[in-house]
């Protein structure tokens, strides 16, 4: 039970629009995968996935219009996730740069 009044037709419209967009983006990501864009392939793949994720969260998961606490959960978890990616990356990408064996 939410504190604001429920607008069924607007909600359904949003749901179907998001579904349509998700289909379009799925087709897009497959199409882009078959093009040779060099390093941009990875950027595009992640970028499209992020766009799809934002739509699912905002509309399907009702994040748009929800309390700050929910945004806090989302950005907080993404921050800590990025730490878990970032530091091992620093390690792996800077190994063997000093010519010291084993470092």
């Amino acid at each position, binding site marked *: *039970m*939410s*504190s604001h009044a*429920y607008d*069924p037709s607007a*909600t*359904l419209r949003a*749901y*179907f629009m998001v*579904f349509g967009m*998700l*289909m379009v983006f*799925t087709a897009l*990501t*497959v199409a882009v*995968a*078959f*093009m*040779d*864009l060099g390093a941009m*392939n990875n950027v595009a*793949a*992640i970028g*499209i*996935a992020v766009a*799809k*994720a934002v739509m*699912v*969260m905002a*509309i*399907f*998961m*009702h994040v748009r219009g929800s*309390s700050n*606490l*929910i945004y806090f*959960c*989302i950005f*907080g*978890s*993404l921050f*800590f*996730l990025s730490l*878990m*990616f970032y530091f*091992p*990356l620093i390690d*792996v*990408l800077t190994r063997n740069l000093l010519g010291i064996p084993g470092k």
Partner: protein
Amino acid sequence: MSEVVSRLQPHFATEQQQYETSTFGMWVFLVTEVMFFGGLFTAYLIYRLQYPQAFINASHHLDITLGCFNTVVLIGSSLTMAMAVHSARVEKSKMIAFWIAMTMVLGSIFLGVKAIEYTQKWEHGLFPANFFLQAADAGQQRIFYSLYFAMTGLHATHMVIGMGIMVYIAVQALRGAYTARWYTPVEIMGLYWHFVDLVWIFLFPLLYLLGRHH
């Protein structure tokens, strides 16, 4: 018109507080799920950077058509789940059960396709514990498949658990348990299922769409 039954539990002051607590609780749980899957994504990230070509070679053994089909199916199941939540908000109990059943049908199709894929991988010697692919970079491809089975297997397990809980919610819906005033279990089931969809939205390009332009 359903009777007005209070579902307020004794340790809460208001129904609004109870609803906000339950949804916040599910979001905190989803935070733990992000970190849970995140460990596997971390391993994937590190190894993909170290063995880019092996990962591309390994990805080519995956069937992009099946992967794409599954993506469409799972996104569809997210839509049907959202429809179930909508039905709860407009107090159409039978429609809640219907849309949940549709979600389960689509989920089952997804799992069926995954079963087909897994069987194919086993037969081609790509299952990590029974790996007999002949290639120069077979070892690193085995790492890719270790992560492939771990990530998609964990994802599938989450789907199975979710679908099990959905049975309970559908039964409760048919009993008229959910009203426009109290439909919290349907809402938080929706949050869980959309999260499952979110994980696949990232798994699909990372596993299936590597190096397809060669």
